[in-house]
């Protein structure tokens, strides 16, 4: 199996577990990983990312619990089929998180609410 396009950032202080989980979700949402496609084994993914299987197992288990993945005994782990509504809700959640971080950064730079709003307006128009 070809390696998945992960990029762990050496200067990102976010724990490896969080980085891997977020990126795997993004791969699924951007449909680089299609529903039904098999994922590498936890050991193979750990080797690729140079992290521990303890971490990759936790990522898979969490994403399974959250409905992104399903595992089949003896066959491996696959991307789960999800309804459009579910995917849409997840997209919104992720987008909201991205915007929230951007807004917080703007506020730290000293921008007021109306400054941020008009900036966003300009960006949307361009």
């Amino acid at each position, binding site marked *: 199996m070809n390696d998945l396009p992960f990029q762990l950032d050496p*200067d990102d202080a976010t*724990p490896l577990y969080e980085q891997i989980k977020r990126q795997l979700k993004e791969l699924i949402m951007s449909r680089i990983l299609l529903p039904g496609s098999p994922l590498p084994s936890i050991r193979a993914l750990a080797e690729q990312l140079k992290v521990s299987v303890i971490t990759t197992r936790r990522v898979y288990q969490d994403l399974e619990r959250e409905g992104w993945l399903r595992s089949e005994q003896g066959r491996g782990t696959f991307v789960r089929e999800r309804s459009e509504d579910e995917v849409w809700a997840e997209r919104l959640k992720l987008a909201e998180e991205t915007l929230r971080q951007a807004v917080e950064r703007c506020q730290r730079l000293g921008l007021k609410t109306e400054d941020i709003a008009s900036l966003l307006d300009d960006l949307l128009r361009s």
Partner: protein
Amino acid sequence: MLKVRTHNVFDVRDEATIRSQRFDYEGPIVRLDGVSKKFSHFMFGPVDLTLDLKPETVTAIVGTNGSGKTVLLNMLVHWIKPTHGTVYIFGKRYSEAERWIKSRLAYVPDFQEMFYGLTVRDLIKQHERFAPDWDGERFKRLANVFELTSIDVPFEFLSKGNRERALLALMLSRRVPLYILDEPTNGLDLFVRARLYDAWRDMLEEGASILMVSHDVSLLERFADVVVVMHQGRVLGVYEKDALLDDWARFIVEDEQEVRKDCVSHFDACSKEQMTSAGMMALEKGVLSSIVSSDRVKTRAYLSELGYRFQEHRMSLEEIIKALIDFVKEDQRSLHR
């Protein structure tokens, strides 16, 4: 007519039973209780150590030359008996269950001389005869994968790499829950290593665990899940690899600011425990422009509080292990002062 079975005399159970009986142990596989061994030139221990060695995981023992890594492995397989203390493997002592323990582990020693005079064929016969967990089919596959050819040549005439390949193929063809490997990639070329990794992955995914000693950094970065650091006969600590990678960081102070003297003395004044939790410093190029910390969150907060601008970088596993050992050496020096 009475049939005498010379091969597979133990192999009367079906595979599922063997599997469930051998892989059923839960709880820490290795426990050393106040273990020490006195040699004329070297003191091992005292070591108190518990290793879970969970299924599917790889635990790597690292440390400088002469730190006692091989002694530790040899104790786990009962080749060296401790002067004091007790070794428990799968919850049992060798004195009460030697065969029971030895049928659950396979050892590849870094001592090929012990097989001189024997050929690979002799060793296959020994395994067929004595190892109830021997998997002949797996050996055929591995012999193929490792390209074993000269199975009738005595060990002493084989190259180092060929001996290692033969030993790995033999030991990995036992179906046991624990493989103990001493410097397993020594003398192997890049291609054989890649194939060895594939074989290990299969074994791990069957539920086995691997405990190894290795100086091979690329192997550790790729395979190790848990790292045991040894120094001068003692165990400095047992760490989950990702916790090390997440917790340790190098801080580079920007704009040629020097970290103030009172800050340095603050770190110096800490006891060892406080030092590890508060972060530690390393001198680079004469000024304290670079700080290595084992607790990035605390060090980040501390430096910000003091008003420094800095960059924060993750460290490689190799750098972290080196720093860990360096800090202990530094500690010992300051104790002697």
